């Protein structure tokens, strides 16, 4: 009996110890960032600089546009993957999941190979219309979309899977059109997953670096998002100080977004 409780206590201690180390590993870098930022006199100037403002604004609106596009094109894809059954379905699923497991640099190189000026689609497009993607904000959104949208589709699909198709059938028998059944029954029931997918997608887009740098380049106000600005600051003579300042700014925005998400979710749950 006492033997049993002693072993329970030991297990519990190990559990807490491992969990605490886990938490500490996330806390320490953040603490270091804040400590560095606060101890450097140039932090405020870096945060309020034109470079930081342009980069933050670009990151915010491109990530939001990317998420909106993911919802518009990704929701039908997720719904069909959940409800329809068609040949080659698992292949399509794997294809959509691929960017999640691939490094974004691969996505950047692949985008160049397809949409670059010498790309499969990019070359004829350039010759016929003169439209090119490289070094444009459009390229930033394309890079973000390819790495971030799969996170939304994945979550949305899981959400639709969790809704019993019988609910839709009941809605149909009650006279609801298929569209109405999806919008009024399926989407609200799948909402927690959809919302989580939205946040994941937006956050992933905010953090996109590799594909953007390779496919879109780096130009203030046009393609220089926050992660790229941090890289550039890191390479500057200001060294770590500038990078720390911009990282703190991005950290603050991320925290704000998380809190807003939590508040919105709680509101949704009480409704």
């Amino acid at each position, binding site marked *: 009996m006492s033997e049993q409780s002693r072993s329970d206590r030991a297990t519990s201690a190990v559990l807490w110890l491992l969990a605490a180390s886990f938490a500490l590993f996330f806390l320490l870098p953040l603490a270091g960032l804040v400590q560095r930022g606060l101890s450097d006199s140039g932090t405020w100037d870096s945060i309020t600089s034109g470079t930081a403002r342009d980069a933050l604004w670009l990151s915010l609106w491109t990530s939001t546009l990317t998420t909106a596009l993911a919802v518009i094109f990704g929701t039908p894809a997720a719904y069909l993957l959940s409800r329809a059954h068609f040949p080659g379905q698992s292949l399509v699923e794997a294809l959509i999941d691929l960017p999640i497991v691939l490094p974004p640099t691969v996505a950047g190189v692949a985008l160049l190979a397809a949409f670059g000026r010498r790309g499969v689609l990019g070359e004829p497009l350039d010759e016929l219309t003169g439209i090119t993607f490289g070094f444009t904000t459009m390229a930033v959104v394309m890079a973000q979309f390819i790495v971030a949208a799969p996170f939304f589709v994945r979550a949305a699909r899981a959400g639709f899977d969790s809704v019993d198709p019988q609910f839709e059938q009941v809605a149909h028998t009650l006279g609801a059109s298929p569209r109405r059944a999806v919008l009024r029954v399926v989407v609200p029931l799948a909402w927690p997953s959809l919302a989580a997918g939205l946040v994941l997608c937006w956050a992933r887009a905010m953090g996109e670096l590799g594909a953007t740098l390779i496919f879109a380049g780096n130009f203030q106000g046009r393609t220089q998002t926050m992660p790229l600005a941090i890289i550039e600051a*890191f390479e500057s003579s200001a060294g770590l100080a500038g990078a720390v300042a911009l990282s703190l700014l991005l950290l603050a925005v991320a925290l704000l977004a998380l809190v807003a998400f939590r508040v919105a979710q709680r509101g949704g749950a009480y409704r």
Partner: protein
Amino acid sequence: MRRLAALAILASLLPLTAGCGSGDASITVFAASSLTDAFREAGAAYEAAHPGTKVAFSFASSQALATQVDEGAPADVFASASEEPMDALAKAGKAAAPTVFATNALAVAVAKGVNIDSLDDLARPGLRLVIAAEDVPAGRYTRDMLTKATAVYGPGFATRVLANVRSEEPNVRAVLTKVQLGEADAGIVYESDLSGGPADVARVSVPAAVNVVARYPVAVVSASKHREAARCFIDFLLGDEGQAILRRHGFGGPG
């Protein structure tokens, strides 16, 4: 007595010769991206000449590497594409006294099928130009060169060229790649980047009168645990074989 003195002299010589002979030392060299090809070859040649020695490289922009060394990255040798990041490290006591081991100059990389014959053409409206970011050495040299060129090509030259810039790449190798891919029509890179005749680009030289001299310093990192092996690698770079490799890759001598 004399025998003892001779022995003492021999003994004092031993560590010197042992240091640069064969051994199982392994060193990490932090080097500017523009040195990528030359140093890979130099590293292989050094390893061949010193069996058992391993040379590992980390290539990035000089400034990023200097920041990493400053933050305590485990480098033994630091080779920079400009003197500022190196001098800052040396002043802070993080690197030993640097030695210039190579020089470089700027050149224009032109994409296949693009009609550019001289530096002057870079001011042509609508040209897609890519350069290195202002804070990396190649980017700073580029802006210095454009300022100098303004005196030759007329007022507003630098402004008109910079208006064509579509991207400021974080290192000079990325500039070359963007031109090779045809994403950019032209890019300003180092002479050495074009020495091997890279695919899909043509080279247009920058006139000596407006060009810059990029001086490459190298030093042993103070925190290195293999200072002797690091010193040997630097001696190799400064020696005939190292210099011949650098020359083959388009670098000028340190003089």
